[in-house]
């Protein structure tokens, strides 16, 4: 069996819409340097590196090779993993498996993106089948809008339910010095923001950001030597759906349901609402912050609007969701899901400063991407069995 693995250091950049002060290698280095400094390690103490982003955003081929000046991968084992929107959580899983394999004691996992160098929607649209679907599928907003419209019709959820979740995340983001959007908003601000695709408005939707995130994993023996408070990885799971968008069932988030169910089983979690102390979720739009809570088993079908209205997921609620402000405040795509893992780890380590939830013992982080992929990672303050 493999090694138990803990997260011993995390670093992220200050995310903005355009970081023209740094190039790609430099923005990667900013996150890596901060992760190393946080863990009080040097790059010499890193055994292997894994990195990810989405090729077509920056137009750089073989990014693992190109990145070594910034990643510290020079004369080290390095590889690239990438799966679209889930790239960050794919990187997170790879960092975990590599450290658990016993081949390495310390693994540096990096996600990054400079979305300012791309046409994000155009680059996303080429994920669709070139003959059958590419002409009608346009970017990420449309499918999310369609998904929530179906959900509203079925369960009587409202636009305001999503807006309330947007208010929650935006106001949380104001406490996070690294967040891209740090402006406090009211329900009326969200209601009055421009419509992007009914029912999703501008303040409901994630921005596109420049940024990077780095997470350092260490095997059991090494982790204890590096920090007294590692965030132990309990398990991680991935599920994805069919290749063609027309084959998907849009009224449920099936992959998140299956991935979380599998992860809970492995982690021995029966009551996610009460057993988790905090969740950092990849919610690309506030509408997902409603509907997807059901897929995570936090409440029953159709019950999510009530959960949001009652403030259960607010900072002072029973299960705070996205203390960092989440994806609608910060979205450097290849890093976005890794930031979820990093923020969840900070919560366990007690290093989340103004966004800290008290006494976090169990945290959930998720990733979401193209083809309705879902990744789930469970972190814990106590070493898994």
């Amino acid at each position: 069996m493999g090694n138990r693995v803990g997260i011993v250091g995390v670093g992220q950049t200050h995310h903005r819409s355009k970081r023209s002060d740094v190039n790609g290698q430099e923005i990667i280095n900013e996150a890596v340097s901060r992760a190393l400094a946080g863990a009080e390690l040097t790059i010499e103490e890193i055994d292997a590196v894994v990195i990810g982003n989405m090729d077509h955003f920056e137009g750089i081929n073989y990014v693992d090779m190109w990145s070594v000046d910034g990643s510290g991968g020079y004369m080290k084992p390095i590889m690239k993993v990438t799966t679209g929107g889930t790239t960050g959580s794919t990187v997170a899983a790879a960092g975990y498996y590599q450290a658990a394999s016993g081949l390495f004691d310390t693994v540096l996992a990096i996600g990054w993106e400079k979305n300012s160098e791309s046409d994000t929607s155009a680059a996303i649209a080429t994920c669709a089948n070139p003959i059958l679907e590419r002409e009608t599928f346009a970017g990420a907003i449309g499918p999310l809008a369609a998904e929530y419209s179906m959900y509203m019709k079925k369960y009587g959820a409202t636009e305001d339910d999503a807006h309330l979740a947007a208010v929650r995340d935006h106001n949380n983001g104001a406490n996070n010095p690294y967040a891209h959007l740090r402006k406090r908003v009211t329900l009326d601000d969200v209601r009055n923001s421009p419509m992007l695709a009914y029912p999703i408005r501008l303040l409901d939707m994630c921005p596109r950001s420049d940024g990077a995130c780095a997470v350092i994993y260490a095997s059991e023996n090494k982790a204890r030597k590096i920090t007294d408070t590692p965030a132990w990885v309990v398990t991680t799971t991935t599920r994805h759906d069919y290749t063609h968008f027309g084959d998907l069932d849009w009224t449920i988030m099936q992959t998140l349901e299956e991935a979380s169910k599998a992860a809970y089983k492995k982690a021995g979690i029966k009551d996610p609402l009460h057993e988790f102390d905090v969740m950092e979720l990849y919610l690309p739009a506030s509408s997902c912050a409603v509907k997807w809570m059901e897929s995570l088993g936090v409440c029953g079908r159709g019950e999510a609007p009530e959960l949001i209205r009652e403030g259960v997921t607010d900072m002072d609620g029973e299960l705070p969701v996205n203390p960092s402000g989440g994806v609608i405040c910060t979205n450097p795509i290849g890093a976005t899901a890794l930031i979820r893992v990093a923020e969840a780890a900070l919560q366990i380590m007690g290093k989340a400063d103004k966004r800290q939830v008290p006494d976090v013992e169990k945290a959930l982080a998720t990733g979401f991407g193209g083809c309705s992929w879902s990744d789930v990672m469970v972190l814990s303050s106590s070493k898994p069995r």
Partner: protein
Amino acid sequence: MERVGIIGVGQTKYEREKRETFGEMVYEVVKKALDDAGITIEDIDNVVTVSNDFWDGRTISCMAVADASGAYGKDTSTVEGDGAFGALYGLMRVLSGAYNNTLVVAHCKGSESYSSAITNAAFDPIYERILGIDAITSSALQAKRYMTKYLLNEEQFAKVSVKNHKNAKNNPFAQLPLDITVDDVLNSRMLSDPIKLLDASPISDGAAAIILSAERQAKEVSQNPVWIKGVGYCSDAYRIGDRDLAEPNSLRRAAKDAYKMASIENPLKEIDVAEVYDAFSYQELLWMEGLNFCRSGEGGKLIDEGVTEMGGELPVNPSGGVISAHPVLVAGLTRIIEAVLQIRGDAEKRQVPNAEIALAHGINGMCGQSHCVWLLGK
């Protein structure tokens, strides 16, 4: 390290302009690998696909093969790089204890790609791309540097091409089985001095798949698993100007790590057969040095003395190598498959007698920036 075995392999015939889609090629090799292992897709608990958005011409290119790889409802991930690196991640997932039977599959259609533009995009966007540099022209610089530093000549490179294309005649999967002479290579069309057409690998389409399994599981399902004895991988500096292109230092490090794990002290004596990534003829000689089969600058001697011929002390690329079929991203996984077949004694007309330890090699990046070394055995 817990023992991990390769229990099934599958590859397509490599051809230019295959009619099959990515998904169809992937389905073909997954089916072959499952049949080879004697298991079904239900026995696979996770899948690692290998794809690259540039070569596939679509973003999130892993989506295009998700169904065909049988990953629906299973845990899955995607490595972007050579298939040997995809296999490495598969190995780590098994070693982590999280998975048992792990499927790794890679695909590429070079015939639907524009290699020069795609490999140009691997260079620095500000300072280097404008030169028009690509895989062929940068490799030409490497070949020149190698010739200049260690006084090798083009005839020696040509001999590699002659040997490997001849070997390919014994491999039904190879794209370019050829009866050629050194003069044919020397007189073939110049691509980028000193690389001529017959020094270069072809444009290829194809796919390959392997199934990895931890020891306990492997013994249950397979009569004949091939065991992974050692692995190593390492990246050199990014800019080719920051490297001495005649010194494959990252390969030396990767090989050292793999040899250490496999307890190999004298690679030339202890290894029975090697499948290396000869995208260009000169590379086989340079990689021989990096793999410590000879001293620096002595790669040419190996081919001159026939050491790497089929009947030599260390047959190299019995399959015909990458120069006889080069599906990018797939080719490193193909090297692993060929090494597996050699150890099993299933390599038919290209079999090296009594092969007990085989080496497989993959590369990433330009001019072999990053290397991956596998040692397989009984």
